[in-house]
């Protein structure tokens, strides 16, 4: 505890971004009550304001080391960057909601998204097992409701599936936490670093269960089966949101766990299975993409592989690895949200329905710019220049090679080679003159167009000005 001691046990500054986001959600619900006529615009505007305010406030803590809840929550460097990623993803995702349709539901939706966001923000800075679980459940509970929101049977199925499978994973996580507590006698992640603790079988069992829980939330193969189904059924903006935010939040926890445990010396052996399944995810996720006919499922499988790349960056436990993982995560956020924004615009009826690949047939002839943007995002996901996906892959490859994980680098290349076919299948459909053009309508989503433009520009800028944040070790103390 440092500057915050004058407030007693809670450093208000460190949790202020969290409170802003959660508080905005309450304000939105109240505003919904007060307003006489349902209006989709007000909740969206309030949501944007809250998220951006939180981003600004959180940004001021970069370079500091604040903590709250007796060291259970740490804000600074790493946590700030992860919180910004989560907040920006939330902004871009709710921009995809079509305000004009069913305006009476917008208040609830935006409020739930904000609560989910505050959960992910809590995970970004969580330094003990209690806050980890609190953040994870806050995120998950809000997402169960959001997944089931669309008026289709698949949406309810999606929500239910997510609820059941995710709860099981939470069970693993919680059981693992209990064992870790038994082994170390403390709920803090810092305690994991004490060498005495690592000697017990309880530590290994608990750590293993804990990592299985995380692997599920990251949807790494073989714990990935839920994600394509859930992504397909959920409303499109929620799919976009989940594809980045749950992964960013969980990745923050994983990085903190990995770097805390590393200090104890036991980490490489404990973490090795996770790097192995990250490698498997790169292959299996990309293979899974090949057979898909739904864009959301395709992007779900793509996300499985992409997060495998991010996890691979952490192998070796170097400080540079964290920076490159964050770099690639930001790149992934921009490519993925950009692609989802295009999908939202091109979805047959509107942004809340499914998104068949057919709706991209002959897109280049009807909307050349939109097709060009989609091509750009898919090329970025495939790792083509001049995009951040290209440079991110170079950075990850080089950390893997220098840390002695050349096999992960080889798997990354093999996985990417497979993914080329899947990404280019969509690109070819958009440009192929033999394919009969699909005549669906386009959603009127001005904010989505803005998202597409911002993401595309940032992806190029990131390539030539690769700012990898320094000072971002996921500290536990």
């Amino acid at each position, binding site marked *: 505890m440092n500057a915050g001691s004058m407030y007693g046990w809670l450093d208000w500054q460190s949790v202020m971004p969290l409170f802003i986001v959660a508080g905005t959600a309450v304000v939105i619900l109240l505003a919904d009550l007060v307003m006489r006529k349902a209006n989709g615009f007000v909740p969206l505007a309030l949501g944007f304001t809250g998220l951006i305010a939180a981003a600004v406030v959180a940004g001021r803590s970069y370079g500091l080391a604040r903590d709250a809840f007796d060291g259970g929550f740490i804000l600074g460097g790493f946590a700030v960057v992860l919180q910004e990623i989560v907040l920006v993803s939330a902004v871009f995702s709710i921009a995809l909601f079509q305000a004009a349709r069913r305006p009476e539901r917008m208040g609830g939706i935006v409020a739930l998204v904000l609560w989910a966001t505050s959960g992910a923000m809590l995970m970004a800075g969580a330094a003990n097992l209690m806050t980890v679980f609190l953040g994870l459940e806050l995120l998950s509970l809000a997402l169960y409701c959001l997944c089931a929101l669309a008026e289709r049977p698949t949406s309810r199925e999606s929500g239910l599936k997510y609820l059941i499978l995710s709860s099981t994973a939470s069970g693993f996580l919680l059981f693992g936490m209990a064992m870790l507590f038994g082994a170390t006698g403390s709920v803090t992640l810092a305690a994991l670093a004490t060498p005495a603790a690592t000697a017990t079988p309880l530590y290994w069992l608990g750590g293993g269960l804990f990592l299985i829980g995380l692997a599920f939330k990251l949807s790494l193969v073989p714990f990935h089966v839920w994600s394509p189904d859930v992504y397909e059924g959920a409303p499109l903006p929620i799919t976009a949101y989940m594809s980045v935010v749950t992964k960013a939040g969980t990745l923050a926890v994983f990085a903190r766990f990995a770097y805390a445990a590393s200090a104890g010396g036991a980490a490489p052996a404990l973490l090795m299975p996770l790097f192995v399944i990250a490698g498997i995810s790169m292959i299996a996720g990309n293979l899974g993409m090949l057979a898909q006919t739904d864009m959301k499922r395709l992007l779900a499988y793509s996300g499985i592989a992409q997060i495998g790349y991010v996890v691979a960056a952490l192998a070796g436990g170097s400080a540079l690895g964290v920076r490159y993982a964050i770099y690639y995560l930001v790149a992934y956020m921009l490519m993925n949200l950009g692609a989802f924004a295009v999908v939202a615009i091109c979805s047959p009826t509107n942004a809340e329905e499914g998104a068949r690949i057919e709706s991209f047939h002959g897109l280049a002839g009807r909307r050349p710019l939109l097709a060009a943007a989609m091509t750009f995002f898919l090329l970025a996901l495939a790792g083509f220049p001049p995009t951040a996906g290209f440079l991110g892959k170079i950075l990850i*490859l080089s950390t893997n090679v220098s840390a002695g994980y050349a096999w992960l680098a080889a798997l990354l290349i093999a996985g990417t080679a497979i993914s080329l076919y899947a990404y280019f299948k969509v690109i070819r459909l958009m440009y192929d003159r033999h394919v009969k053009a699909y005549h669906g309508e386009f959603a009127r989503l001005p904010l989505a167009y803005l998202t597409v433009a911002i993401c595309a520009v940032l992806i190029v800028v990131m390539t*030539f000005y690769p700012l990898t944040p320094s000072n971002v070790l996921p500290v536990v103390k």
Partner: protein
Amino acid sequence: MSLLLILLPIVAGCALFLVPRTDRIVSRVTGCVIAAITFFLPLLLRGDGTFAARWLSRPFTAALHWSCGGMALWLVILLALCTFCAVLATDMAQTRTMVALLLLLEGTMMGVFMARDVLAFALFWDLMLIPPFFALVGWGGHRETAWRYLLYNFSGGLLLLLATAAFGVLQGSTDVIGTAHQVSGAWAPWIFAGFAIAFAVKTPLFPLHTWMPATYADTPPAMISIVSSVQSKAGLFGFLIIGLPFFAGAMEQWKWIFIIAGLVSLLYGAYIALAQTDAKRIVAYSSLSHLGLIVLAIFSQNPIAIRGAFVYIVAHALFSAALFLILGYVETREDTRSLARLGGLGKVNPKLAGAFTIAALAALGLPGLAGFVGELVILAGVFQNGYFWPALIALVPIVFASAYMLRLLQDIFNGPERTNLPQRRDLTWVEGLAVAPLLAALVVLGVYPHAVLAAASVIGGAR
């Protein structure tokens, strides 16, 4: 200036998409003007127009570094010339889109040839593979061809990426092209293998060539004239600027694999070219054969042979671009490329026949044209280093080359005339203008090869 050479075609190519889709005039004029500017700019401005900006400082230093001097200068003006001719020869459905793709191809390849940084090289390497894919999607007849092109070339590109990352980690910097510093260590041969596979796919080299015949046959002539003539040289150029200065040891270690692959390409390409009936495929396989000779020259690591290789790179680019453009003209006139159905075109198209004859004679290595100089110098160099049998075997396909080139000439332009020809007109002046510079350059370099040999001696010295 080097940045301008890269960005000008790319920006112009993107801007062309704003022109109406049906346009034929504006896009071609723009394309020609841009290509002409990129041709004259490096010649008129003194100095090598270096552009350098810091890019990465960790995990290895990398710079956005391009420079247009020595060998790169020759390839740049060669590329600009071929682009000029290809744009001029473009007259097809969706001319605007094709010209835009040609300009994008030119800009991205400029980035490859002028790169002074391995990472920048890899960046533009991947980029230059994209326009031909779109050409195959937009104009190609067979869906499979585009996939085969894509999977072969982009997998090569990914290996290049991995090799670049490993190279950077080992050397500490990728901003090294133009210097020479042998990479040592147990990993060096494997890093070289990553580069070499990417280069061998692009060249192509047996047995990684199977994407090539279908792609060359299926891509529209304007695009393929650049791909076969200049883009295929990117791989050979890679051996010269990355292989020799950094991996001479690994190249020595694995030279027999490449020398044998080169010889097999030489013989196999020539043999298949004799048997094919599709005119474009004949030229495609002849390309495989000719480039095998260059690979042989590079891996002999003899300074004279490497000089010859560079001359032959330029010569092959000129005659292969001319051959593909002229076969494109034949196809628009006759609606077929099959030797079984063509015949007697020379009678009504004397200028077309004349142009083809010059290009074909250069391809079969007639003295006085550029192809001969390259072959002679290569064989002399290879022989000098004691590779007696490879040099002897390499002589055989040169005889084959006369056979298949003369067969092309005979079957398309001589012999009995076909009745019911769809269209009869000789070369228009625009079509003629599109191949004239290439043919003129073949003659000039055949008579005065010293200009190119002098540029190539710089590489010899850099080793």
